[in-house]
């Protein structure tokens, strides 16, 4: 041990002296020479590489507590691997037994967090109850009201609001922990009532609209539907043809590709199409809008697909990103795609001396449409093998109809 190194806690003087100068049992020089000869005599039989790797590796496991840190700091790196909520962090600090002040703060945070959670859940429950009552006109699961006659929606919503407002303080105690602060209860109740009223008004407006006129694209319901969920491209209506489908995506069929092609085109006068919401969350809009659209007369039925211009590119499944597609795949992406399969293609001509060429044509969906093999492997069984290997290449979809690239396959 060098003089500058810390020895650690001092031992009793005699023990310290023994430890520092502990001799091995005495052996004669003849003994050691004999041992050395014994070893060298064995060396002829020892093959290089015969020693297991395990004997050359670092011995000894880590001692418990090695590199010790305060407990809550040591736990941090593992916990940092995943996102934590503030409540989890507070819990970790509380459980790590830090100073009393920190513990108090953590406990207070947890208490606040759980209280906020409880209130949020309560509000959500009440809103759900109010909304379901408003939409379906189903009486609340209250025994006293279950036999009551069904009332109009607006009246029912008003009743819910009134009922909630009247019963607020005592009912809150019943729903949640009795020891909780009730300071926010009136505010929450007011918010629930306002939301119930808004829902009622919305239903009322919709019902009225449904019975009178179809919904125009600019109306709030359509806006709600579009904000709530990505929906299929809206076909233009007769009165206000929407240019989105054809004009904005020239030559690119939109997400309604499963429908007949004419659905993407401006419709003849008088034809009405329904705006469809695709997400379940937009269910009410879907029902309203479909019912609002008058059924097209048989004479005005969409043109059959056969009447589409034959020069128009074929339809593809909708991906909702047509407008963002690049004209052709990126050079790097093509190179990477080919490199991924090149080794297996090269293996096809392992027995050949000459390299081969291949012209790969990708379709706009990113898949390989065709592979033309030339060079040494042309017209040999290896050509089929190369074709099969290169066909597995994939690039991202692009706008052009096809994209061809040539590559050289060299024997491995």
């Amino acid at each position: 041990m060098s003089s500058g190194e810390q020895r650690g806690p001092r031992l009793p003087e005699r023990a310290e002296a023994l430890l520092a100068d502990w001799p091995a049992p005495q052996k004669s020089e003849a003994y050691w020479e004999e041992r050395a000869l014994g070893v060298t005599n064995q060396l002829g039989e020892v093959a290089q590489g015969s020693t297991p790797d395990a004997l050359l590796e670092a011995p000894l496991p880590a001692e418990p507590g090695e590199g010790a840190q305060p407990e809550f700091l040591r736990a941090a790196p593992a916990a940092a691997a995943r996102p934590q909520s503030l409540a989890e962090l507070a819990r970790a600090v509380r459980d790590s037994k830090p100073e009393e002040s920190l513990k108090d703060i953590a406990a207070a945070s947890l208490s606040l967090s759980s209280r906020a959670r409880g209130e949020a859940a309560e509000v959500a429950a009440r809103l759900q109850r109010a909304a379901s009552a408003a939409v379906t006109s189903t009486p609340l699961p209250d025994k006293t009201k279950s036999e009551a006659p069904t009332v109009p929606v607006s009246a029912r919503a008003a009743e819910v609001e009134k009922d909630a407002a009247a019963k607020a303080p005592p009912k809150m105690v019943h729903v949640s922990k009795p020891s909780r602060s009730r300071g926010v209860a009136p505010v929450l109740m007011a918010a629930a009532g306002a939301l119930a009223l808004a829902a009622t008004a919305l239903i009322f407006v919709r019902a009225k609209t449904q019975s009178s006129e179809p919904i125009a694209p600019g109306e709030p319901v359509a806006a709600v539907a579009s904000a709530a969920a990505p929906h299929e491209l809206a076909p233009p209506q007769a009165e206000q043809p929407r240019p989105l489908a054809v004009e904005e995506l020239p030559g690119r069929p939109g997400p309604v590709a499963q429908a007949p092609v004419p659905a993407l085109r401006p419709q003849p006068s008088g034809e009405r199409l329904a705006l469809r919401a695709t997400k379940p969350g937009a269910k009410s809009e879907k029902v309203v809008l479909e019912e609002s659209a008058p059924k097209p007369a048989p004479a005005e039925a969409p043109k059959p697909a056969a009447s589409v211009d034959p020069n128009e590119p074929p339809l593809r499944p909708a991906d909702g990103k047509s407008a963002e597609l690049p004209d052709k795949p990126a050079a790097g992406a093509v190179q990477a795609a080919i490199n991924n399969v090149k080794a297996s293609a090269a293996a096809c001509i392992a027995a050949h001396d000459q390299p081969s060429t291949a012209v790969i044509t990708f379709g706009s969906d990113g898949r390989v449409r065709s592979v033309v093999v030339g060079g040494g492997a042309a017209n040999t069984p290896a050509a089929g093998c190369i074709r099969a290997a290169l066909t597995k290449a994939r690039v991202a979809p692009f706008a052009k109809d096809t994209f061809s690239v040539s590559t050289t396959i060299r024997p491995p």
Partner: protein
Amino acid sequence: MPQKTDRELVDAARAGDSEAFGGLVRRHQKRIYRLALHLLRDSAEAEDVTQDTFVRAYGALDRFDGRSEPFTWMYRIAVNLSLNAIRARKANRRATTPDDPRIEGLLVERRGTLADPAALSADREIALALCEGLDRLSETLRTTLILVSVDGLSHALASDILGCPEGTVAWRVHEARRKLRAYLEQRGYAVKEE
């Protein structure tokens, strides 16, 4: 003729000169034996481990990358072989007996310098307590303490042998000495404060 360094001997042995490797054996066998004896507490086993250490080292010469000194590389093999031997023992040989080879060697050494039988007996007692304290340490703490405090290796060399940072060696030595001191105090060998 100047003595060849360990590295030169290793290079010669790699080239097939078994005599050169014999030079390494003669140079380091006593230290490796002492290390093995402290780890194993058995003379016969220590002899076997010492011999095996050199044979294994010779069989791994092609994997000696020269990043460490040859003797620390052989020490590592000796520590691994000793630990393997300890783990392979069927019976738990925890108890330290008066015929412990470590104590025997100590007493042979002291007999020449301590003429007073009472002092010799006291020395024997504290040596026995020290051995018991060492045996109560974990393998990791005991091995590290033996390398540093008994064998006198620097923390850097010990870290090279054990494959851990110097700071870890320092922590282990400190921890081992703390536990050893507590044990000796328990046995009545308290540290006299100055």
